[in-house]
């Protein structure tokens, strides 16, 4: 099985695993234990990881708050800002292509009486800056825009959005889960107040993430998990030391490898697209080709039933244009303007650190064979001269 679903999750890098292992049973101390060596060792390891995370995003270590993952980080950012917002700021601006871990907390606030503006995107996947400017008002508490999209890889102009939002005094949050370690991030250049990260998208373990909280922005954020006062009171609960060490190590490895890896993976991605485009009619990239994550390719096929496509693909682990939990089309693809059938007949390829050139050739060959088979067996091609495939 060729694994091309690195946006969903990644394997733990052996270097990360090695760093984590001592912290399960050998160095098992609680970093909140201030009175003995095991506690100090654990605390030292957590603080080292904090520096490693901070270094990858151009932050100071004090600005990194560890969480159980990006979903919690997003919830802390959104619900936390809302809880601390003054009564005259009860408005949130976000984008239709955000992850559900952003959209759902926003919807929950909407149900509590908050005003939520969900901005559309163009067929490119990019949000219109003029629309952002129009949406943000002095009553806006938070603007949350993803840095790189988890389905189509599109990189939003977060720095420009932040400038527009800050002009009205809003807090700016970015879900940077897919971007971390895949493209250079400088939180000061992005000018965001909050940014969410996850370890398992970065060859680290599942169940750990972080929220970057810009110095001073903590005054406008309220903890959502209380108890114990850990993480400067912003996230209670005993720290997941092995996980945090893993996140730190994953960030350090990414910092070393990123420049070379971006070039290597984008070349493989371009080769995959070339093979598909050359051999398959009626295939199109969903969203703009650029600016896009190096490892992302999201394509739709004309005249193919999406569900049959996915079941017929046996040799490649890819993700479909269906939402995680149902046969509904992806909200990201429909936001681009794709019809239901075309959105369902889409594949998301996520290339990663382990992806090889030979795998790309094999994967393309398999996908091409499956698409060709499904099209060949379509009754729309039963007669000579009949048009290819079914309806888009």
């Amino acid at each position, binding site marked *: 099985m060729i694994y091309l679903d690195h946006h969903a999750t990644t394997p733990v890098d052996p270097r990360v695993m090695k760093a984590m292992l001592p912290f399960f049973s050998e160095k098992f101390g609680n970093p909140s234990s201030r009175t003995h060596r095991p506690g100090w060792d654990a605390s030292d390891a957590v603080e080292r990881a904090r520096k490693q995370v901070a270094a990858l995003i151009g932050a100071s270590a004090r600005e990194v708050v560890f969480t159980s993952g990006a979903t919690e980080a997003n919830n802390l950012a959104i619900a936390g800002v809302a809880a601390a917002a003054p009564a005259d700021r009860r408005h949130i601006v976000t984008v239709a292509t955000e992850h559900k871990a952003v959209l759902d907390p926003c919807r929950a606030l909407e149900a509590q009486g908050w005003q939520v503006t969900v901005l559309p995107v163009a067929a490119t996947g990019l949000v219109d800056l003029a629309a952002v400017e129009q949406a943000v008002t002095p009553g806006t508490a938070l603007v949350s825009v993803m840095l790189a999209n988890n389905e189509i890889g599109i990189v939003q102009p977060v720095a420009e959005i932040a400038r527009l939002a800050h002009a009205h005094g809003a807090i700016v949050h970015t879900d940077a889960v897919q971007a971390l370690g895949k493209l250079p991030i400088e939180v000061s250049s992005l000018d965001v107040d909050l940014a969410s990260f996850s370890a398992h998208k970065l060859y680290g373990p599942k169940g750990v993430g972080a929220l970057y909280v810009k110095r001073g922005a903590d005054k406008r954020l309220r903890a959502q998990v209380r108890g114990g006062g850990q993480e400067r009171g912003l996230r209670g609960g005993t720290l997941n030391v092995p996980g945090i060490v893993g996140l730190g190590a994953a960030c350090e490895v990414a910092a070393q490898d990123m420049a070379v890896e971006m070039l290597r993976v984008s070349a493989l991605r371009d080769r995959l697209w070339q093979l598909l485009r050359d051999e398959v009619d009626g295939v199109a990239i969903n969203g703009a080709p650029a600016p896009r994550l190096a490892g992302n390719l999201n394509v739709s096929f004309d*005249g193919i*039933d999406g*569900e*049959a496509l996915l*079941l*017929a693909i*046996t040799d490649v682990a890819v993700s479909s244009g269906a939402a995680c939990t149902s046969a509904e089309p992806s909200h990201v693809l429909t936001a681009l303007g794709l019809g239901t*059938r075309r959105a369902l007949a889409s594949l998301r390829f996520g290339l990663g650190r382990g992806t090889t050139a030979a795998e790309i050739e094999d994967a393309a060959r398999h996908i091409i064979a499956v698409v060709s*088979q499904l099209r*060949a*067996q*379509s*009754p*729309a*091609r*039963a007669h000579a001269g009949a048009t290819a*495939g*079914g*309806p888009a």
Partner: protein
Amino acid sequence: MYSDAVLERVRDPKRVGVLPEDSPEVGTGQAGTLDAGTMARIQIRVKDGRIVEARFKVFGCSAAIAAACLMAEWLEGATVTQSRAFTPGQVVDALGLPEERVHVANVAVDAARQALDEATRKAGTGRQR
């Protein structure tokens, strides 16, 4: 979600193809529409009241592909009389289809019955000549 009976027919479908529509031995049936998302075309070659060859084409979900494929399997080698007894319920049971996909069995059986009708008609016309 799907049984092995469905998966194997989606991944390695047998009897996909076309028979010469104008042949006096060939009956063609088509049901469903591309717009509705499921369309099946089944063709049979009949000799002396027995189906000696069955071919299908299908557009649709995995269940639709498996249903058309299974129909062609059952038809090939059966007599015309036996084939008229095939029901959508039998297709659903054989493939273990989930309830929301039952309509694809109707499409496959409809296409098969139309093919049987046309083959019977052609055979009758042939005898009259």
